[in-house]
């Protein structure tokens, strides 16, 4: 039934994209309809609603740009959003990988979108790394899946490293982040807001899923690799952002730092022990949602040359991790999972505690540049698309004013769907 609805959504999306050659607005309308159908097919409503909201906001932000492929771009974003929704519906290895590709490929085209032309140079730089990343990821995933059936230590470690490196390259974790500052600063802010928000969720989800699915006795030894990458990414991102002037560049490095925080969720995957994974999944997703909301808000503000000041500050506070905004809860649950694992692991438990401490230190380092960003992008109120989008994303980060116990319940459903009991 759900699969049928997803297929229906895809069909609507395809028809809409075709129709948009004639009338561009058809693309937008059908994309929205497809997302509604997709939401109805979601097993985990809480997860689905967030993706739906992010997807819709991304769609509307595209309204403000006059691109060559106007109409089709709605279809592409719709496709990404549907794939992101669907990954939480499936417990099937092949479909998880398919979702990854479905989210990755549309961004190759989106990254080139700009006012009245195509940004080919950026496109090439981006696509080169994305292809490389996807291939690494897929090979890593396949190797890991193989070791699940017939275990081989060497293969497992190779698979793990390839998967994590592929993920890092895909989302921009340092030291594989070189493409991020360049692409973020030279592409149009709107497509970048999509790449920095919606496109980040599936790779993490897929990696987490695969790592949990294939976890072995060696996992706890190899997580140190991920931990080191996460630490490098946090520091590189934050120091880079702290010492950059250009807004888009600050946001690029902030993405690098945020991906470092989220990467620590993978560190927690040592054994499918329910509570650790539960907190990590919840923290990772909230962090990704908060990152998505913040990036959309800030990039749109760059595009619109400023947005309403209080909204910008709220986004900045969410990034910093001020309670009760969403960014705080993301970090809080990630920290909780790390500390729990650290206390659980008798030996080498300190590694996890150190990682948790690094997150806290890095959050402190990030304070000045987020505040600076908010103060420089913040202007008085004007009724326009930029502020409409800013209000929408601020609503998202304000949802957690109600402490997200409810989200944990949602995660329980999600975890059952993808085959982890929490």
């Amino acid at each position, binding site marked *: 039934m759900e699969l049928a609805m997803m297929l229906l959504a895809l069909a609507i999306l395809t028809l809409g994209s075709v129709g948009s050659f004639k009338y561009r607005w058809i693309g937008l309308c059908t994309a929205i309809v497809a997302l509604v159908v997709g939401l109805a097919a979601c097993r985990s409503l809480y997860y689905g609603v967030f993706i739906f909201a992010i997807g819709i906001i991304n769609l509307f932000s595209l309204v403000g740009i006059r691109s060559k492929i106007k109409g089709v771009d709605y279809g592409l974003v719709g496709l990404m959003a549907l794939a992101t929704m669907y990954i939480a519906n499936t417990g099937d290895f092949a479909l998880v990988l398919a979702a990854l590709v479905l989210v990755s490929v549309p961004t190759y085209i989106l990254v080139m979108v700009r006012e009245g032309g195509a940004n080919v140079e950026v496109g090439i730089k981006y696509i*080169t790394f994305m292809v490389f990343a996807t291939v690494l990821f897929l090979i890593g995933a396949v190797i890991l899946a193989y070791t699940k059936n017939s275990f081989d*230590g060497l293969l497992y*470690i190779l698979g793990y*490293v390839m998967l994590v490196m592929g993920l890092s390259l895909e989302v921009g974790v340092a030291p594989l982040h070189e493409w991020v*500052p*360049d692409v973020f600063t030279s592409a149009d802010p709107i497509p970048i807001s999509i790449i920095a928000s919606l496109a980040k969720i599936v790779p993490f989800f897929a990696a987490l899923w695969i790592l949990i699915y294939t976890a072995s006795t060696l996992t706890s030894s190899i997580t140190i690799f991920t931990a080191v990458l996460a630490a490098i990414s946090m520091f*590189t991102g934050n*120091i*880079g952002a702290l*010492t950059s002037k250009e807004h888009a560049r600050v946001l690029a490095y902030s993405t690098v730092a945020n991906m470092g925080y989220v990467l620590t969720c993978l560190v927690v995957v040592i054994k499918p022990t329910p509570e650790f994974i539960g907190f990590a999944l919840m923290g990772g997703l909230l962090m990704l949602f908060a990152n998505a909301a913040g990036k959309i808000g800030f990039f749109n503000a760059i595009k619109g040359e400023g947005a309403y000041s209080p909204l910008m500050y709220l986004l900045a506070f969410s990034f910093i991790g001020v309670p009760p905004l969403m960014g705080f809860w993301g970090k809080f649950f990630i920290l909780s999972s790390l500390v729990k694992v650290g206390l659980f692991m008798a030996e080498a438990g300190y590694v996890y505690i150190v990682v948790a401490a690094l997150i806290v230190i890095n959050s402190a380092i990030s304070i000045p540049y987020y505040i600076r960003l908010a103060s420089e992008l913040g202007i008085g109120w004007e009724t326009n698309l930029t502020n409409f989008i800013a209000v929408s994303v601020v609503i998202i980060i304000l949802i957690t004013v109600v402490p997200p116990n409810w989200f944990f319940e949602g995660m329980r459903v999600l975890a059952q769907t993808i085959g982890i009991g929490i």
Partner: protein
Amino acid sequence: MIDDRIVFLLLFLAPVVSSIPIALAYKSKGWTEKLPYLSVFGIFISVLMSLYIFFVFPENQQYAYDWIPDLGINIVLITDYLSRYMGVITAVIAFFIAIYGLEYMRGDYRPSWYWFFFNLFTASMLLVVYSDNLFLLFVGWEGLGAASWGLIGHWFRDDDEIAYVGVPKRKVGPLELSWPPSFGGWRAISTIRFGDVPMFFAIAAIWVFAVDKTGKSTLNISQIEWGTLFTTIGAAGTVILLTLFLMGLLTKSAQVPFSEWLMTAMTGPTTVSALLHSATMVAAGAFVFIKVSWYIRPWELHHVPGLEIVYTFALFIGLISGLYGALAASGMLERKVLLAASTMSSLGLMFAAAAASFWIQPEPKVAAGMNVALLVAFWYMAVHAFAKASLFLVSGHLIHATHSRFLCGGIEFAKRMKTPFIVTIIATAFLVGIPPLTAYWVKSMMDEVKLHLFHHAMETGAIHLAIPIILLILTSLVYSAILAKFLSLNFIKGEKPEHEHLEGGGLMKLGYVLMASVLFVLTYHIFVLEETEGFVHAGGEILSIGVGGAIFIVYIAAIFKPRITALSKLGTFFNDRMYLPFVNDYILPKTGFFVSHLVQDYGNRGIDGFFNTKVMPGLFDRISKGIRTIQTGYLKTYIQIVLGLVMISLILASIGGMWI
């Protein structure tokens, strides 16, 4: 019967809530002239509630409401003997002073500030009085500190010389012995904080170590098994814990060497001085000491090592403060400061009496089974409160009438100011211990207690316990002289005032007449109550009669000869409070500056160098440069970096994998 929660809520909140309107209306002259009546009404509600508790609530009942049970922090109130009486005393005194204040503070430049803090002061003291939980008590305690700062520094503009303490421009060494209100407020809060912080830690330590009968942790004074607690923490632990706790009480009660703030607290409005000196603030320290000793029952804990040291310490601090205060007052010529020093002396006697409880065994048939040392300390506090408040209110009226804060006014002046004159005679005579007036009976019991210590010293050879009786009698005599001097130099033998402003004063007179009249009620109570029967007996003892007679002679003599010119140098030394201000204003700050310079010059340079100027910024600089150098913009370079990293990782992973 009214629900106990409502009674307590009204008791504590009525004064605060009723003073909020005037605090909010601070900009409107019209409203700030009318709203003080509402504030006074709030205190009146507290009076009613305290009386209701006194007459209707059962004695020794505990009322507990949860707050943070996990930390033992709860709203626990108790209606024991001490709280019931002290609650009424506090509320009534505050109410009388408030009536007086309606006139005294008329036309002041910030009535909103005054009334808000005045009422907060009262409410905080009531909280201290009724609390059984140490943390709740501490909340009220801090309320007292904050309100006292606000009130002492009320005339913060320092623009009226009449609010100063000390003689302007009088210098001793590097120090000017003259203090404006703003400095007075600061001296009060800084001294009190100095004691509050150790006290807070002591309460924390009590929470960690103390248990009740069932073995559960508790902060409730009446439930803590004090004997078990002291045995658990050992002799050194007991001494440290109680000394830390006493730090809070001694600073609040302005005992030596923390007395300086009380002298300069006289920079506040006189109503504040009256409240501060009678039923709140300084009384809080002595009250809490009596209350805690009431439940520690030190006389049953002679086997506990360390406890005797603490009580001996408190005994002598009290006695030394008593004599110091009386002597300092003997050299003083400022109306309020003289009274302040005498208060300090009285508080010393209260501490000394309460500390003597360690050596006094209560007998079932005497004083209703209570420890007479604690009982007499408490009763002295009650008598002192009303007498001293009356005297302060009178001196406020005199300052109004003469525009001078120094003692002045002869017999002609007294004839025109009959009411204050009579009230002063009553208040001084009733307080110094002239037979058969109120304080005589209380002081007689105090003599008995100290005499008991003297006998104890003779029997056991603990010779230091022979000293208290001598110090007490000496203090009583000097004390009698100073209050007589106050009476004489204000109404009988003083110089003619430069100004005389005798109109009005109706509400002020009402305030202190009501206040002094309570002294008669107290005398009546001493004669009819079961527990104070012993006071009356003590009054019949030969020692008491002798001391009472001596006090009377000194009193009369001092009235006729209030100033002895031959001793003027000694008087100046006493008036300079034996140079104790140097500790507060010179030695301590200089030490502080020295330490802060040390930290600034040597400590901070290292810390700054690491975090702010050299190491960390340098590191950030280098990392930032590195990060930016990578971004060449060339795809080729990026591919090289990424491929290189991936290959290296895979090689390392292979090696690691094979090794595992």
